[in-house]
């Protein structure tokens, strides 16, 4: 099953189990442009799988109103870049309604805001803005990297009572993998996808796959952690690993400057006093032409080079 189908199955299961779960967004009736809603409107009807106008602010704001009025909406934003048209509704409304009302209202919704470079789609369809949302109190931020996680973490997000910014990757939709549909999962838990003793390499979303390849080619013994949830991030797992390896590299596709890697690196450096490095995209808009777009990518080779710098550095 691929990454898109896995999410679709998770949503299908949630809609079957709970009539309060509804989905709204553009083009859902046709299955969503990545197939991640395929068949759901046919199965649950247009009243629960709602085709909307191109009105991002009202898609998101209406979802807040639906949540306050007793539903558990799933909000389709197509790509994170478009969700910027709904930033008030996410940051000022969804994230704060519970707090501002003194707990009278809650906003249990899942907003799907896919991140990442989408080949050939240029600057307004290729951003990775997970750090923006991690910065906002009230929000949960999830970044699945595999079909299994896109099934289990979407299920966990749908069960979560908080507003969840659920960030699939725009180039993982077709990724195939085994999915155990009975596996349940929890938000806020990282996964050690490869054990090692020399360096802790933390990544998420598509960068996990480049990290695994780089680790396999490195002369160092690299422990790769898929963070999976950006907020709340799994401090315990990352700290335990970094305490063991005494070296931390965080790799992400988002622009390196003020990326979430900075937060993890700073926390680990402050808490453990170990060597930390970050690798991320350069601070440029993603260009259209392939040679330009490639400059924005965080590749296996770049991660390998960063690991090699550790190797050349002073001993632990």
């Amino acid at each position, binding site marked *: 099953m691929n990454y898109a189908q896995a999410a679709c199955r998770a949503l299908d299961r949630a809609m079957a189990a709970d009539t309060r779960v509804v989905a709204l967004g553009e083009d859902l009736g046709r299955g969503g442009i990545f197939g991640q809603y395929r068949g759901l409107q046919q199965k649950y009807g247009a009243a629960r799988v709602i085709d909307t106008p191109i009105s991002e602010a009202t898609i998101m704001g*209406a979802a807040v109103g639906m949540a306050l009025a007793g539903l558990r909406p799933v909000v389709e934003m197509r790509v994170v870049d478009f969700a910027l048209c709904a930033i008030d509704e996410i940051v000022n409304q969804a994230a704060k309604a519970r707090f501002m009302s003194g707990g009278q209202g809650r906003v249990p919704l899942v907003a799907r805001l896919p991140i990442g470079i989408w080949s050939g789609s240029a600057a307004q369809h290729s951003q990775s803005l997970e750090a923006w949302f991690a910065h906002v109190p009230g929000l949960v931020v999830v970044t699945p990297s595999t079909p299994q996680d896109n099934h289990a973490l979407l299920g966990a997000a749908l069960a979560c009572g908080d507003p969840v910014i659920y960030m699939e990757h725009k180039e993982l939709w077709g990724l195939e993998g085994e999915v155990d549909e009975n596996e349940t999962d929890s938000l806020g838990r990282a996964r050690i996808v490869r054990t090692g003793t020399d360096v802790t390499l933390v990544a998420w979303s598509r960068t996990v796959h480049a990290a695994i390849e780089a680790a396999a080619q490195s002369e160092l013994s690299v422990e790769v952690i898929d963070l999976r949830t950006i907020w709340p991030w799994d401090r315990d797992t990352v700290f335990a690993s970094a305490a063991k390896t005494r070296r931390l590299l965080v790799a992400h596709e988002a622009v390196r400057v003020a990326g979430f890697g900075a937060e993890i690196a700073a926390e680990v450096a402050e808490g453990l006093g170990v060597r930390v490095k970050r690798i991320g995209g350069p601070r440029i808009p993603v260009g259209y032409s392939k040679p330009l777009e490639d400059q924005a990518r965080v590749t296996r080779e770049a991660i390998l080079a960063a690991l090699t710098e550790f190797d050349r550095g002073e001993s632990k």
Partner: protein
Amino acid sequence: MSRPLPATLERGLALYRTMARIRAFENAAEEASKGGVAAFGASLAQARVRGPLHLSTGQEAVAAGVCAQLAPEDLITSTHRGHGHTLAKGASLARTLAELFGRASGFNGGKGGSMHIADFSVGMLGANGVVAAGIPIAVGAAHALRIRSRPEVVACFFGDGAINRGPFLEGLNWARIHELRLLFVCEDNRWSATTASAAMTAGEGALARARGIGLDGAAVDGNDVFAVFAAAGELLARVRRGEGPQLLHAITYRVKGHVSVDPAAYRDGEEVSRALEEDPILAAAARLRELGAGAARLAAIRSEAEAEVAAALSAAAAAPWPDPLAAYTDVQDSGAGRWLG
């Protein structure tokens, strides 16, 4: 604009009482907010009501007339100028004032204040600090009621400034295509902060824009509470019959400044004097007298409202402050906490 009278004197007096309570509340809140915010040349001093306080003084007829046509289970969304809507929907005046005082006994436990006042128990889903932000929320609430096969309706209050924001078009369009049970109420006080809305608004305004997308409604003298009551009743009857969302354009006037410390010296004095002559409470009193209400009865309603507010002021001043650690609650379940290392 028609000049209807209430069907009964009691109904008219009830509307008058709601307006009197809002006015007394706003006057007390205004007094308690002096020194509460550094803006418009005012400096910060000790004040019981902190921060920007947006008063609905002079606009009481809109809140009173519309909310009197709603059932307790019906929902509303409000604006930064929302005390009147809150009280008219049935929220406790004492707890509203306690929230403005930032006390634990306020509706939001001191977490919201004036701009975020909410009482979900009476269907008041919240004031909002962002112009037009309540529109999509109201649309979603009405959509949820549709999905849940509920009979309730939603009334969405917003100001004249909101019609120049995108969510106005988006929300009206959405409500229209889904034929939601929703009454949009443009409470037009003719001022967008310190700028006259007319200078910033092309065309004929809220109702014309609504009609441009096939969403009908009515314009009404927003200082005539009986006219607002009648118009809201007619439009809500259409909404409840499933004839689609409606828009009420209620034209009133912002008697006070944008916030309580704003002297609004940028306005033409004659404009303000004219507005004061059209005071909705005085107008309602005059018409109630025509219906046979005695002056003593009207005066008693005013003094009861004053007494209620005086008691609320004492109670709010004596109410406990929130536990400082309450700042960390109601944030989120996953990832809550201080996260300070």
